[in-house]
């Protein structure tokens, strides 16, 4: 559907060209006007016939339609239209009933989920506990996936259907985040999926879910078309037909919105935000994202690869292992100025590793104030009154303005005497090197719906046996933090669990386990007349877009 505003202008021009045509005076009017008139007529017809079509420009390609194949955001975004999960996530990141109406713990290691009754799959069959059990088993059977969903099913050691509407899941040890895990596993129809290969999902044959939309067509790299599921348990969507266009480059995506080829786009380029805001034809929606941008700092005592003295000679002792140095670095950063200038307002200064409102967010933690003098004092106390040499690393195609963030922080560090160089790399190179511990100070962005999850992965002591610290690039390790995170994860009582998570966050951040910078904003732009609540998890869900 084209945006009505441009339609309106053209319709006026169109009639202008047509009226004289009737009187016979302007038969020789230029071909251009005639074309516009035809175009306007087309627009009229289109907007009448296709009143409930929605076209959305997505910023990343959907690689597979199999909802269990690859755990990456674009795939999850699409699957969420076709499938439901037991537990759904609301726009603010809170867990709400999905295919399960309620869940509780029977004992410390057993969770029970009550299924919603009368939910129909797209093929008309009814959802039962069998489909749920099948869906929870399926991720582990897809061994050829580079990013499987098994991270969310591995805690379950046993599962059974008590009756067709009740499922019990057993974990080896008490495990609090199970409902959160269940928000990541899409429930597929056992009948349709049990003998299906990935190809069957891509062709749509096996794409039988319970979600608000049904599959219509898929042209890889170009578009996915969905039609409304009139039987949807959560109420009918406002849109008869939804077309997702894949437009990965940001300027063309914006152009498609401006030209009226799509009604809405995600991830608006920052440089154009101000212009869009001022344009009455469009509505801009912004929301604090779950993604927190922070620095991983090498915490090991021995030589760090990119720390040198001021002459460029490697230092034998790693100054970054001293908590005072890390505090000095944190104090040196003017987060407010950075959010306003470098991020053009698209960031909220951070004190936590999860965004405000997310489970485990500790509001007792305050954003570190900009204090260059205090920073210099701390450096001197730590034995580096003249600073040292350092190289900051960051990706250059991953987070909003990531390269500029690294440059800005380098300037802040230079002001307190840390002679700072910058190197940014494309993601494909960056992640592998960072994981291998090749950087001293490295930028990372992380989005999670639970503080204890984030802490376990980002600052938990790296250990293959526990599976912790998989993204702990700085190798921070504090047994007390580990113990608190462990208590949180094993608390099935969610209030207690959040308490432990907050304590752990406070302890880890006091020691600057990581140096938080900001939470980035997610942004959507749409033609006037549409509204979108904005989602903390950055997803773009057509069923939550409403005509005003």
């Amino acid at each position, binding site marked *: 559907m084209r945006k009505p505003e*441009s339609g309106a202008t*053209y319709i006026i021009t169109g009639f202008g060209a047509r009226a004289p045509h009737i009187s016979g005076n302007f038969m020789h009017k230029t071909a251009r006007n005639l074309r516009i008139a035809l*175009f306007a007529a087309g627009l009229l017809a289109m907007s009448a016939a296709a009143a409930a079509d929605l076209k959305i420009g997505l910023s990343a390609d959907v*690689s*597979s339609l*199999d909802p269990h194949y*690859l*755990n*990456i955001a674009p795939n999850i975004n699409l699957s969420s239209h076709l499938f439901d999960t037991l537990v759904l996530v609301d726009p603010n990141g809170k867990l709400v009933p999905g295919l399960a109406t309620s869940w509780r713990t029977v004992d410390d290691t057993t969770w029970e989920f009550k299924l919603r009754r009368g939910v129909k799959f797209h093929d008309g069959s009814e959802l039962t506990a069998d489909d749920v059990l099948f869906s929870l088993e399926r991720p582990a059977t897809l*061994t*050829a*996936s*580079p*990013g*499987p*969903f*098994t*991270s*969310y099913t*591995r805690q379950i050691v046993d599962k059974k259907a008590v009756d067709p509407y009740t499922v019990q899941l057993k974990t080896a040890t008490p495990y609090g985040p199970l409902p959160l895990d269940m928000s990541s596993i899409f429930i597929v129809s056992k009948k349709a999926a049990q003998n299906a290969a*990935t190809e069957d999902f*891509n062709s749509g044959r096996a794409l039988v879910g319970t979600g608000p939309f049904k599959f219509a067509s898929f*042209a*890889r*790299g*170009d*578009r996915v078309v969905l039609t409304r599921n009139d039987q949807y348990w959560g109420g009918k969507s406002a849109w008869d037909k939804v077309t997702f*266009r*894949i*437009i*990965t*480059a940001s*300027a*063309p*995506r914006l*152009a*498609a919105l*401006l*030209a*009226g*080829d799509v009604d809405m786009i995600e991830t608006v380029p920052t440089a154009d935000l101000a212009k869009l805001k001022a344009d009455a034809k469009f509505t801009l929606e912004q929301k604090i994202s779950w993604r927190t941008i922070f620095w991983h700092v090498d915490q090991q005592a021995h030589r760090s690869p990119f720390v040198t003295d001021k002459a460029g000679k490697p230092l034998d002792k790693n100054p970054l292992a001293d908590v005072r140095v890390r505090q000095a670095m944190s104090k040196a950063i003017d987060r407010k100025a950075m959010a306003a200038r470098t991020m053009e307002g698209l960031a909220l200064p951070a004190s936590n590793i999860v965004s405000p409102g997310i489970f485990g967010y500790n509001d007792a933690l305050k954003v570190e104030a900009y204090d260059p003098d205090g920073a210099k004092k701390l450096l001197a106390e730590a034995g580096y009154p003249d600073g040292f040499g350092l190289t900051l690393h960051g990706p250059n*195609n991953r987070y909003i303005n990531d390269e500029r963030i690294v440059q800005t922080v380098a300037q802040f560090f230079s002001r307190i005497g840390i002679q700072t160089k910058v190197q940014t790399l*494309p*993601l*494909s*190179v*960056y*992640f*592998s*090197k960072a*994981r291998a511990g090749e950087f001293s100070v490295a930028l990372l962005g*992380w989005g999670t719906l639970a503080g204890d999850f984030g802490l376990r*992965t980002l600052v938990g002591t*790296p250990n*293959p046996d*526990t*599976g*912790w610290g*998989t*993204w702990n690039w700085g190798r921070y390790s504090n047994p007390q933090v580990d113990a608190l995170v462990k208590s949180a994860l094993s608390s099935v009582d969610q209030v207690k669990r959040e308490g432990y998570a907050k304590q752990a966050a406070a302890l880890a951040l006091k020691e600057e386990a990581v140096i938080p910078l900001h939470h980035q904003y997610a942004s959507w732009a749409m033609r006037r007349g549409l509204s979108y609540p904005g989602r903390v998890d950055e997803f773009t869900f057509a069923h939550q877009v409403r005509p005003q």
Partner: protein
Amino acid sequence: MITFLIRRLLQSILVLLVMSLLVFLGVYAIGNPVDILISPDANQAERARIIAAFGLDQPLWQQYLLFLRNAAAGNLGRSFAFATPALGLILERFPATMELAVSAMLLSVLLGIPLGLFAGLRPKGLAGKTIMTASILGFSLPTFWVGLMLIMVFAVKLGWLPSSGRGATVNVLGVPLSFLTRDGLEHLLLPAFNLALFNIALVIRLTRAGTQEALQQEYVRFARAKGLRNGRIIGVHVLKNILIPIVTVIALQFGSLIAFAIVTETVFAWPGMGKLIIDSIRVLDRPVIVAYLMLIVTLFIVINLVVDVLYSLLDPRVRLAEAK
């Protein structure tokens, strides 16, 4: 001729081998695709299992040998990200890119030759000078910028043409083609023009230079002395003689059009091979990268071969045995 073809074939196989080895080494040096595709909450055990499942834990030479064995059997591997055979994935996108490249080629010929001819005949006139100046722009302006400008003007400001994407397609012998529908043509026009721009400029310059040179030749003077019509001199005698270098260059450029449609495809969100390869490089999807480059190299080899053979047929002075 036969010896020449056999030697060419052997050379080609060698080129393909060297190229695949280079890509393997290159991707290996960049990083591990699992680090990008792995789910953020995966633990070390899962990561190790995935790396093993893709054979990425093997030494590089073993991975390469396995690839060669499979490739010899016609299997270039499965894409990591898409979970489908890499070659199929590329061939699925091939018609879209081909359509774009052929349209661009047609545009360069249909616009380039008449304009070049015109400029060659009236090198001192205002029109001729304008054409030549415009052709400099065609050479020097970056494609992505011109593409964005085209979108801004024709899609955003004027609203005449769609801003991006591929239009409705019609299946012809199982191949989806978009230039047969009105919607498809509208979508095709801007990207094809954008991709053609460089070649239009190139053809204009070649044609103009050829024309000016041909006009000085004896046979043109003779034709004029004979009293032939100007139209016949230009349309038949001049054009025929300047066409040989133009055909050669166009044929060679065609390969580049396919291979370097990447920028245009990205700017216009055209679902072709170029867009696929960019996305694949971003996530280090090695099977797709290797398969794509193999295909492109093969394409270049075939085009070169065809040009060499054609050239020898067109011009008896060129003998293939001498081509080294």
